């Protein structure tokens, strides 16, 4: 629900000296993405993807850096970033487990898998395990309706999922 505004008045921004948007990333974006578009702002999604790829999430400081880099205000960057569910503005576990809950997956029994996941990890959807290993999310259609139920683990799509196969896979992760 991209339109829900979160209270931000008391929010503390964590800072670190080292930039998140490193010079190497900037050079890469400047070279690969900026020339593709008529405005610098249009390179914002690729920039946010690059930051998330590097750090596994997008801290506020990184959004400020992206704003400066692209000639935008920080508010403009937050405005865009907060709209997209796949941009994680809070730290998440090393392995993000996203289980599809849309219609074809529900028809093919995603519910029992979700229940077992909740049981095994001891967390509800939206939460991260205490050791920071797993974050569990329910997500809408992954485009694998023909091979439902579908679960995405980090960027890795698991299709025709059974609990046995999924559990074995999760146990094999570091």
């Amino acid at each position, binding site marked *: 629900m991209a339109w829900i505004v979160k209270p931000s008045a008391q929010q503390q921004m964590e800072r670190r000296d080292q930039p998140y948007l490193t010079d190497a990333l900037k050079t890469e974006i400047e070279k690969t993405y900026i020339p593709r578009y008529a405005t610098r702002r249009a390179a914002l999604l690729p920039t946010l993807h690059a930051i998330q790829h590097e750090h596994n999430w997008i801290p506020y400081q990184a959004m400020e850096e992206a704003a400066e880099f692209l000639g935008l205000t920080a508010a403009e960057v937050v405005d865009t970033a907060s709209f997209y569910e796949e941009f994680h503005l809070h730290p998440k576990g090393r392995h993000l487990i996203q289980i599809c809950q*849309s219609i074809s997956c529900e*028809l093919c029994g995603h519910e029992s898998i979700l229940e077992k996941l909740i049981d095994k990890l001891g967390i509800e959807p939206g939460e991260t395990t205490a050791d920071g290993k797993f974050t569990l999310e329910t997500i*809408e259609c992954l485009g694998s309706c023909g091979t439902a139920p579908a679960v995405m683990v980090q960027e890795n799509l698991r299709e025709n999922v059974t609990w046995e196969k999924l559990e074995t896979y999760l146990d094999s992760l570091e």
Partner: protein
Amino acid sequence: MALEQPILCKRIPTPPWGDINDRKTVTFDEYVCTGGYEALKKAKDITQADLVEQIKKSQLRGRGGAGFSAGLKWSFLPPPDGEPRYLAVNADESEPGTFKDRLIVDFDPHMMLEGIAICCHACNLDTAYIYIRGEYHRQAKVLEQAIAEAYANNIFGQKSILGQVNGRVLNCYVHRGAGAYICGEETGLLESLEGKRGWPRIKPPFPAVSGLFGRPTVINNVETLAMLPFIVERGDAWFRSIGRASTLGENVPGSFGPKLFGVSGHVNRPGVYEEELGIAMGELIDKYAGGMRNGKKFKSAIPGGVAMGFLGPDEYQADLDFDIGRKHNVLGLGTAGVIVMDEDTDIVAMTRNIVRFFARESCGQCTPCREGSGWAYQMLCRIEQGEGTFNDLDILDEVARSMGAMPGTTICGLADGTNWAVKTAIEKFRPEFESRCKSSLVQVNVSVGGSATV
């Protein structure tokens, strides 16, 4: 009628012609060996006006959901004025039950790239952006690879065989989304491409006149573009020999050409299959998808992505073409992602599932969509748990019918999805909803849309 040879699936092994286990990504060389990029060479020597005319005559209709004539859309473009013009390829495919564009991108990306080049040439567009949903990680990589091959072989770039297009170098880029269904709506997509929230724009102006970066822009679906090489190569008469004219009247546009149908849910062999437009759903399920799972009886299906609404138990043989909306009281053919439900399916739960999707994906600009879908979801949860009343059913129906681009209360068509799912479910399965409801002891007068009187 039935397709004799696979067309879009020519290089993608698909039953009954091939085995899905033999699928692999077709490389540039393999594509060329099997006649690929011949159509582009042919198109190069056809004038742009003739190309647009040919596509118009073929009566190719958009494969992304709305079914708008591709040639007609192109003809709305103003004449070139020396400034940039764009193609936005819609590969955002996020509608539950839809997984057909993924098949093309995964296994035969050059078919789409050739279509892109043809479209850019025909419409004088110098830059194409392929907007692909964020969750398609693997597919984005496949595309990057295919585009690199196409540049290396002078399809795009400085040395493109098309020369300059719109007075510029022809370029093609991948642009990744980040998990927002609404970016599949064409103007939401443009906003997202510009680095903003994917908030659909109020139309007019239409994108053909003022689209990406305020410039003329064509937006087409992956499958629509993948169809182009075949039409250019084999002619518009060939295209019209597949599928059929509308049976609703002479002036109603027909349903021509082959089509990818996704079949999911309670069938034995779910998957994407290719057939002529107009195939009966029952035939698609029995012949291609291996029939109903566990020999169960058919109860309902959604013809093309969850926005379309439900077909009833007696509509198993509904013809899958663009007439389906008017003939079977659903929104339309949509994405042709057929979701099949057997006799044990809880329709109330499925309606709840669909409405939750739309509530979650609403971009929040329009009140009927933002608030209405949230309310409808809560009411459906209550009815599902046996806590609803008959009165709830009527309010639910009224809330749903009040939202959408068709009632004219919202900017885009997302809210119509909630509308059609709810109203068709209640219309076609009312007893099932009623059996879950308690009769309300006290009648409370609530008027939706007015000030609350509760």
